[in-house]
């Protein structure tokens, strides 16, 4: 391992882009990211992790099982009210037993963020400096630190620690420009590989039971001519990933997704309820900033893993295109 690291470090000298002594070649940084994504997708693992946002810390259990029959994940919260998220292949369900509500969402593999692919390399490198850090220890495992330092204040920095052998991300930290942690996911205990009992992947609740409400979020791809909204003056480094139409809480909304390769921002536009005017509001939960504002007869909701100013710029830059065919 040391020999490998030495070889990698020596290799840096040959790369003119890597001006900082410890900056890793973009390709190497990308390899680390891809390895984390692959490990999280392909490995069986179960464990306990903490989610820290602001001053709050919450603990959850997670199981991931992938076999010939498919790909399954389950997450249950251990603190506060019981909540659960279950994924069975392309279907994700969030259970809120307190209000007997289940929200179901069908992933669409052709539209989902495509893992970590080469096309993202350019985007990531343009917006972040990739550094390979020291070896750290998380949940009893040695792990490799990889830092993605933003080149501007439009985005947060990311510090990952990936288990040395498997590449499984054991810790993911999001930091602001003052290097303060705004959000943290970290395993406190994890078993990597091995058998995962199937029943651990089954939801604890039946959303079809009496008293439960099952909400489905439906999607439909927009025809080009239906794309009425555009985001002008979007923050640098963010590219439009996709645009679609969906039903959200029973209302039809347009969703436009932008990404710089590591952070994503969704802009939702839906008709305002007649006779009301939405209040402008700005909220955040950990790395997620949420900005809601009225725009003529519509309500714009911009949210994503980016600082408030970035999310507000997205929310404030939504424009109705002049109608196709109109003069």
């Amino acid at each position, binding site marked *: 391992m040391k020999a490998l690291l030495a070889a990698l470090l020596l290799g840096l000298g040959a790369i003119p882009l890597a001006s900082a002594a410890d900056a890793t070649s973009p390709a190497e940084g990308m390899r680390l990211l891809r390895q984390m*994504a692959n490990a999280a*997708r392909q490995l069986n693992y179960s464990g306990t992790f903490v*989610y820290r*946002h*602001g001053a*709050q810390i919450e603990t959850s259990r997670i199981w991931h099982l992938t076999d010939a029959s498919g790909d399954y994940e389950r*997450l249950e919260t251990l603190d*506060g*009210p019981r*909540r659960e*998220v279950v994924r069975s292949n392309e279907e*994700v369900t*969030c259970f*809120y037993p307190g*209000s007997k509500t289940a*929200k179901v*969402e069908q992933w669409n593999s052709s539209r*989902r*963020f495509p893992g*970590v692919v080469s096309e993202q390399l350019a985007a990531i490198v343009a917006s972040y400096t990739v550094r390979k850090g020291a070896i750290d220890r998380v949940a009893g495992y040695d792990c490799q630190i990889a830092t993605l330092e933003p080149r501007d204040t439009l985005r947060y920095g990311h510090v990952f620690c990936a288990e040395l052998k498997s590449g499984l991300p054991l810790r*993911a930290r999001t930091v602001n420009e003052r290097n303060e942690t705004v959000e943290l*996911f970290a395993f406190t205990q994890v078993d990597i590989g091995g058998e995962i009992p199937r029943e651990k992947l089954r939801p604890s609740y039946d959303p079809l039971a009496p008293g439960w409400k099952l*909400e489905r*979020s439906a999607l439909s791809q927009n025809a080009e001519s239906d794309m009425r909204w555009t985001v*002008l003056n*979007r923050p640098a480094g963010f590219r439009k990933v996709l645009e679609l139409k969906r039903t*959200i809480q029973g*209302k039809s909304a347009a*969703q436009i997704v932008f*990404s710089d*390769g590591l952070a*994503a921002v*969704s802009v*939702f536009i839906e008709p*305002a*309820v007649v*006779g*009301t*005017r*939405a*209040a*402008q*509001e*700005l*909220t*955040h*939960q*950990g790395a*997620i900033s949420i900005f*809601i*504002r009225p725009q*003529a007869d519509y*309500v714009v*909701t911009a949210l*994503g893993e980016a600082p*408030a100013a970035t999310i507000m710029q997205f929310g404030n*830059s939504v*424009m109705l295109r*002049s109608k196709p065919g109109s*003069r």
Partner: protein
Amino acid sequence: MERISALMDGELDRDEAAGVLPDLRKRNDLREAWATYHLISDALRGDACVDCGIASAVATRLAKEPTVLAPRPGSSGFGKRWALPSLAAAAAVATVTWMSLETQQGTANGPIAVPASHLLVPAMGIQAQNPLADFAQTAHIPNSSSVVPPIQLPVREFDAYLMAHQEFSPSTAIQGLAPYVRTVTSGPAEVKR
């Protein structure tokens, strides 16, 4: 239009731009879009408000304005022809006023603005588990142009939006299901400092 926007953003390469320019010369609608986009972009850059709340300002002024329902003396035909539309306008103003009064009911603290996106929440019964906690900590940035100040409302309605977003977030690609905990967290969102 997409290409005009891209051209403006400098996202087209030389060849793509060369393809768009002849269209821009020929088509009125594209030229108009080009001009509009620049206007908008300038307005945004200049920090001028694009949505200045003109509609609500006009509505307020209109509401204060006395509405004369009687035909004007000496304008015979003209007056009759316009009496109905003006009555309709008065009715519209009355409806708007009534609706705004409706939304103001049930609060001891004076007028409120109900974010439209929140209206369906109680009806649909998808409140967060601890609505009081949710009420408590949302930072509201008053909309300076709005006539009525906003009230604090539950924020956990954004769970649905967060869930819709999470599928496309690279954090899901890199970390698997773990980031979905954001959508089921019991804690309130923090005040934006």
